């Protein structure tokens, strides 16, 4: 095995991270046993990664394989389904993770990883899912990068950033591909996801809807084209349940099976023509979440508006194929429509009157008795409703019912949820000889306050009844409304919020509706999710219309041209990036710091030569920039000590480098306008050393001025015959320090009352003077001198002379920053050091 066929450590790391994310996101769809296999594989692989364990033995792999087999066998009745397929894929993913020895194996794991990560989208297409998948893809691509790039395999984060960068660069091109990718109808039929979804089923037992009441999961969203109808009319009919076996209500073949459905594009059937539609109509669009069957929700008397949906004989909507995920459909409803007005044929009538042979004798007796007493269906219904209204109560925690559930409910418990009322109502009607059926669906929903769309959640699940009346057709009755009209008029949440404990999605439901900003956040997130879903789902239509509009036609050459242009446009930045970027090396942090220092020296005109060592470079650059010798030496020494001796203070070095700015100005920074002033206060070494420590002072140059000799030397100055004074010329940034402050420091640094001498230094060259550059400086200096005289700080008057600056002669190089160069010299030791110490004490706030 040659080295580059090995799996780099960072490759393995990102692979494990990707595995963890992909499998975690699939947890809810995987059987427990498979999760155990996943966990064992992952832990073992982490053990290998950390060098604790060796490759797993044959027995373990065999055990895991058996576990996979048993897990799949136990959890799924058939292998042909989405969940078993994904489970199988995850099994392979886990087992191959353990079997990974060479780069080739790692590649298989990576490609399986891509596939597994993306299959998550088959279960859910929400934003959160998309983000999770994106994260997985970045991690997997990072492992691919860490397997192939040299730097990526060395530095862990490099691979991650490279992956993220590449994917970001791929994004514009993805849009192009997405736009032109051919969309074909399904090539062969595939099993849809049928893992347990919270929601309606086509088999209703008493208690089923009560259970839904504790779920805040999304059922569907509705966008009305016009004004939405009032909430008490929002009965979302899902199915009619006509079959009853004494225990459960079922959706039997009548009404929706083949031949009895009129699909959207088919011509109207005979039975459809007999529907009296009426004038009113409501047009809307529903986005249905994933559910377990082919029924669709709609308001009374829907007309399908989307291909693949159809109207069944029981006036409900059905879809041709159950959607594996979200689906969207359009409906026009006729709320005033009347259906099957004329007559129910014999078979149908028997069907809608069907009751099991025995059971619930009390109810049957009462129904027969009331039917006889009232004589008409209307009156019978009124009496029953009144009965509900007076004697019954509505609760989410109804008591358990016995074998004769309807009897128990009507005559003893008298507490129930909507399904109790609806089911007993239908039973009662049938027992009284009136055709009736149970309808299940949702009632109400929550309108988004800003966007206006309606969100219907599982806790809005509802059951009610439809009764066939002579001459009127099917008429809707909701016995729950008779008992608890507030259930229909207001939101379920407002009604039940104290009674209900929601089991799922704690955030998306209205638990926090009391907290305003949280509720707003919830609504905004909800809106975002809805828009995302609309975009993702509605894409197919956009593709064609968008392209057609953009290109003005939809033929092959236009398409080719578009692809060519758009791709080049999308790839241009990538090309620029890859060819012209001068990405640097990934360095050891210390080296990076040192290179930053070198970079700064380079901007100051001193570039490090290839192969030049730090010490040699420090010597050369110090010659080039004598004013910075000290700092250059300190930084170089600090770096060398840290890097090669492993000792020193990194934080200090960092700070030092950060503050090291040998270049006066750089182009992109706000230009600093500095001012210059020239001061004489005795020996210039003192002023020089002191001002170098003052904040805002950018440059200090020792020199001579005020005399007649041209280009004087230090020796000439020392004779005192030149007329020149030893001065320092300061370059300072007025934003940081004012001229006045400079002068205040100046007067504290020397004795301005002794004429032509400072301490032991005697002569005119040591006079105290301010050589002003302009009238402003002169004015300020006069003010400061006046202030000092007034303050009485000194016994005698200030003798500092104010002279206009004539010619400034910089002193010889060795005088510049003399104190730093010769700290051991006698003068420095005796005169400057104590002065500097005192100065540091007094002006701490103004020091660098």
């Amino acid at each position, binding site marked *: 095995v040659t080295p580059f066929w090995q799996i780099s450590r960072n490759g393995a790391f990102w692979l494990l991270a990707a595995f963890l994310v992909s499998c975690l996101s699939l947890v809810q769809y995987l059987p427990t046993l498979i999760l155990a296999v996943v966990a064992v594989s992952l832990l073992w692989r982490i053990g290998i990664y950390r060098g604790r364990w060796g490759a797993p033995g044959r027995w373990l792999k065999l055990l895991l394989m058996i576990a996979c087999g048993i897990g799949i066998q136990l959890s799924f009745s058939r292998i042909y389904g989405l969940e078993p397929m994904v489970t199988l894929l995850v099994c392979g993913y886990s087992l191959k993770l353990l079997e990974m020895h060479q780069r080739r194996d790692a590649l298989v794991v990576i490609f399986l990883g891509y596939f597994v990560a993306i299959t998550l989208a088959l279960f859910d297409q929400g934003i959160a899912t998309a983000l999770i*998948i994106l994260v997985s893809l970045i991690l997997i691509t990072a492992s691919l990068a860490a397997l192939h790039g040299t730097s990526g395999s060395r530095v862990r984060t490099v691979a991650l950033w490279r992956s993220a960068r590449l994917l970001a660069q791929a994004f514009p091109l993805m849009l192009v591909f997405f736009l032109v*990718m051919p969309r074909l109808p399904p090539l062969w039929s595939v099993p849809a996801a049928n893992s347990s979804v919270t929601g309606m089923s086509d088999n209703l037992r008493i208690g089923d809807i009560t259970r839904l009441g504790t779920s805040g999961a999304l059922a569907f969203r509705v966008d009305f084209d016009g004004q939405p109808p009032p909430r008490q009319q929002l009965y979302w009919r899902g199915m009619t349940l006509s079959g009853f076996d004494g225990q459960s209500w079922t959706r039997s073949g009548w009404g929706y099976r083949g031949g009895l459905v009129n699909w959207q594009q088919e011509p109207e059937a005979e039975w459809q023509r007999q529907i009296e539609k009426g004038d009113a109509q409501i047009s809307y669009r529903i986005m249905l979440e994933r559910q377990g069957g082919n029924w669709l929700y709609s308001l009374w008397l829907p007309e399908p508006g989307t291909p693949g949906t159809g109207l069944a004989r029981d006036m409900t909507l059905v879809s041709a194929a159950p959607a594996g995920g979200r689906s969207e459909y359009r409906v026009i409803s006729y709320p005033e429509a009347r259906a099957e007005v004329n007559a129910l044929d014999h078979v149908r009538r028997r069907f809608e009157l069907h009751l099991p042979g025995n059971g619930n004798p009390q109810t049957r007796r009462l129904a027969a008795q009331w039917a006889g007493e009232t004589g008409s269906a209307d009156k019978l219904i009124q009496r029953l409703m009144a009965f509900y209204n007076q004697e019954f109560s509505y609760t989410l925690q109804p008591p358990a019912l016995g074998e004769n559930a309807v009897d128990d409910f009507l005559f003893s418990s008298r507490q129930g949820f909507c399904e109790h009322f609806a089911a007993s109502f239908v039973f009662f009607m049938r027992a009284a000889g009136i055709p009736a059926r149970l309808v299940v669906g949702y009632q109400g929903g929550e309108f988004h306050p800003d966007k206006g769309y309606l969100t219907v959640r599982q806790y809005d699940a509802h059951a009610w009844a439809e009764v066939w009346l002579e001459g009127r057709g099917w008429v809707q009755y909701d016995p729950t409304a008779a008992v608890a009209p507030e259930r229909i008029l207001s939101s379920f949440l407002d009604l039940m919020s104290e009674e209900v404990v929601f089991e799922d999605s704690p955030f998306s439901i209205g638990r926090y509706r009391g907290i305003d900003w949280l509720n707003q956040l919830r609504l905004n997130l909800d809106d975002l999710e809805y828009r995302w879903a609309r975009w993702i789902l509605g894409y197919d239509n956009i593709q064609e219309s968008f392209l057609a509009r953009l290109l003005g036609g939809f033929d092959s050459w236009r398409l080719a041209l578009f692809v060519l242009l758009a791709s080049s446009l999308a790839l241009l930045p*990538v090309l620029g990036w890859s060819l012209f970027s001068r990405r640097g090396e990934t360095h050891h942090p210390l080296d990076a710091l040192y290179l930053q220092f070198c970079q700064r020296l380079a901007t100051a005109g001193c570039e490090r030569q290839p192969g030049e060592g730090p010490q040699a470079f420090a010597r050369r650059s110090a010659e080039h920039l004598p004013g910075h010798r000290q700092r250059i030496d300190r930084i170089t020494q600090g770096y060398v000590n840290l890097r090669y001796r492993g000792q020193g203070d990194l934080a200090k070095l960092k700070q030092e480098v950060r503050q090291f700015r040998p270049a006066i100005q750089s182009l992109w920074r706000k230009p600093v306008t500095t001012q210059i002033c020239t001061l004489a206060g005795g020996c210039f070494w003192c002023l020089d050393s002191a001002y170098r420590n003052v904040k805002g002072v950018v440059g200090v140059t020792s020199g001579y001025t005020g005399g007649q000799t041209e280009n004087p030397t230090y020796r000439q100055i020392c004779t005192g015959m030149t007329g020149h004074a030893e001065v320092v010329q300061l370059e300072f940034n007025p934003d940081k320090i004012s001229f006045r402050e400079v002068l205040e420091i100046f007067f504290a640094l020397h004795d301005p009352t002794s004429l032509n001498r400072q301490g032991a230094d005697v002569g005119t060259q040591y006079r105290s003077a301010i050589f002003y550059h302009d009238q402003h400086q002169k004015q300020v200096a006069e003010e400061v001198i006046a202030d000092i005289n007034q303050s009485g700080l000194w016994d005698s008057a200030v003798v500092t002379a104010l002279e206009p600056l004539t010619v400034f002669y910089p002193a010889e190089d060795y005088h510049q920053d003399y104190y730093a160069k010769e700290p051991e010299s006698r003068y420095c030791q005796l005169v400057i050091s104590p002065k500097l110490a005192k100065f540091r004490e007094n002006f701490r706030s103004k020091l660098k």
Partner: protein
Amino acid sequence: MATPKPWRRWFNNWLERRLPRVKTASLTRKNIFTFPSRTGWMFAGVLILLWLLATNYQNNLVFGFSALLGALLIVSIFHGYANLSGLQLRVLSVDHGFPGDQLRVEVELSHPRPRRREDIHLLFPDGDTRIVSLSSERASITVALYLDARRRGRRHVDRITIETSYPLGLIRVWSYLNLAGYGLVYPRPVAVEAVASGETGDSSTRSAEVAGSEDFSGLRDYRNGESLNRIAWKQFARGQTLLSKQFVDPIADPQWLDWQQFPGMDREARLSRLCHQVLKAARAGYAFGLRLPGQCSDLGVGDAHRDRLLAMLAVFEIGDAA
């Protein structure tokens, strides 16, 4: 070496025309090839599966992500190409050697516009591979590869494959470089059975001497590092400066190594024996020369002289154009 298969021969000829031998090869879009690697094809397979999945489930999110991965494949072409583009390669030096030796070839990779390049594989057809990276801070890097020395003559540097699968290993970007540069392969030295006594030097040969340790020849200022044994202590004791004694070795009689010494042998056998004699003579340290049909060397000593003669043997009767 087995004769190459016809298509291989055709391919080599095509390459010869397309990428002729050059002193310095610059990698540009004219000589860089790009194609998905095996990993890339696997990746494309995954993409097709994903597209099928998306189509069958009519799932736009899967469509989107497979489009993203497809775009990733395309984007990595550009990065791979940029990783090689602008590189310049030349052969700095090639060692000489005997048949069966590994000749060291120094190849210099440079980039006039430095940027970070990594995971660049350089390989010779017989399998010697180096992986190198270049940084934006270094203008060039030197890589050593090794060539098999096979037969006597000029061993031209094999076609070098330079390739990279940066950044994701999905795309193989490569070029074949035909770089000018060769090493000499000397004849295989074969010991001479019976010592064929060469003619002793002719009258023109002057006896010569070289610095050595045998005979005293004079004094000279002592230089640091010279052996203490050589210091002329007597002279030093007399108050003179430090002097060192100089000695010379007399050179043995020069010898001519002649093609004609080995009658009845074929060319290679003669060359092999001459080669052995050259090596022996160079070790022994006497002045020697070489006479080949139509060529005659000077007499001389030392490594440079030996190498000159070996070169004569190496390319004897081998055309320059090879």
